[in-house]
């Protein structure tokens, strides 16, 4: 099946956007570091289900964000804690705490598994939101591919910040040499680095939908974009402020 052709879009979509979306779909279908291809596609399906989950809506208004993990309107056979994590990242992310991440880790949702899961959720979200912003339907999820997770961990990790281990600034070498290239290793890049391919997905999609790491140094604007950098930052800033993003 041809994904993300955007042939039926009433608006001409840049070819590099469709190509990035297709490449993520290919990666999504295969086994990752901590989840199988079937589980990864199930995580994506669950992220979509969170949009209409009644319990998510109810809990977002509740004073306590930490009850009823088993009450989500789930569409997968994923473990309850994974389903709760997916729904929470989608609908109530600013109440995520270190203690919740630690509790999950002690009860089966490991930190690498959590990071890979989060990477899938946010990558899917940025693609689905692009379509929704243009009034286009969501793309059909890919067919899962066979294979086992590699259980790969980067050799150099630190726990100096955030809720999960991350590759330290200056620690991206060897197989990870590409991760922070062209940057100083900002925390937003380090955030998913426990699962390097999750960060690679982040960079793939950001390069097409926003800017590449190298492109961020251009404060004026890129020739292949219809909006200049200041216009981009107004859109980015308004979305971030609406979402109460401090970072």
């Amino acid at each position, binding site marked *: 099946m041809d994904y993300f052709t955007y042939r039926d879009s*009433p*608006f*001409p979509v*840049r070819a590099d956007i469709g190509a990035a979306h297709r490449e993520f779909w290919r990666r999504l279908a295969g086994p990752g570091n901590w989840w199988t291809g079937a589980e990864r596609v199930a995580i994506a399906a669950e992220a979509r289900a969170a949009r209409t989950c009644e319990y998510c809506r109810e809990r977002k208004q509740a004073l306590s964000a930490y009850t009823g993990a088993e009450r989500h309107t789930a569409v997968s056979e994923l473990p309850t804690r994974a389903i709760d994590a997916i729904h929470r*990242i989608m609908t109530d*992310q*600013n109440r*995520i*705490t*270190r203690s919740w991440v630690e509790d999950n880790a002690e009860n089966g949702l490991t930190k690498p598994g959590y*990071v890979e899961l*989060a990477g899938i959720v*946010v990558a899917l*979200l*940025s*693609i*689905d*939101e*692009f379509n*929704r*912003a*243009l*009034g286009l339907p969501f793309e059909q999820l890919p067919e899962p591919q066979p294979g086992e997770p590699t259980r790969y961990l980067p050799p150099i990790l630190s726990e100096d*910040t*955030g*809720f999960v281990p991350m590759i330290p600034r200056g620690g991206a070498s060897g197989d990870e040499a590409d991760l922070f290239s062209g940057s100083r290793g*900002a*925390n*937003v890049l380090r*955030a*998913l680095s426990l699962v390097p391919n999750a960060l690679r997905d982040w960079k793939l999609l950001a390069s*097409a*939908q*926003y800017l590449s790491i190298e492109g*961020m140094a251009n*404060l*004026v604007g890129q020739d292949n*974009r*219809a*909006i*200049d*950098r*200041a*216009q*981009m*930052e*107004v*859109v*980015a*800033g*308004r*979305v*971030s*402020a*609406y*979402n*109460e*993003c*401090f*970072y």
Partner: protein
Amino acid sequence: MLRVSAMQTERDIDLELINGEVSVAPGLKYAAELTAFAEAVASMEETSLTAARAQLEAVAGAAVLVDAAGVAANFQRMVRIADAMGIPVDDADNEMQNEIREKLDLYRFRSSENSRRAT
């Protein structure tokens, strides 16, 4: 980044655009339509999104709409990465950044708890 880009291109852009406190910026083409579209995407509310999409396309064209959609969608995920991983800001001691955070009252956001506040 907005302030730095504005300085680089010698434009006077009111940062309150970010908070939705103002909607016009003489130095920025389509400011009102871009901020309305961005807010509509973030709100997840389809009626306002349909109207904002039509308005942006009408005044700026399809190419601007598509690129704005890409940026808005990208930043729908950025907040979730930051909050899900609990990362602090990188530049807690940067004077200009702190001035902006104070001016825009960003410490009202719950996720500011993940960052040290400069004194």
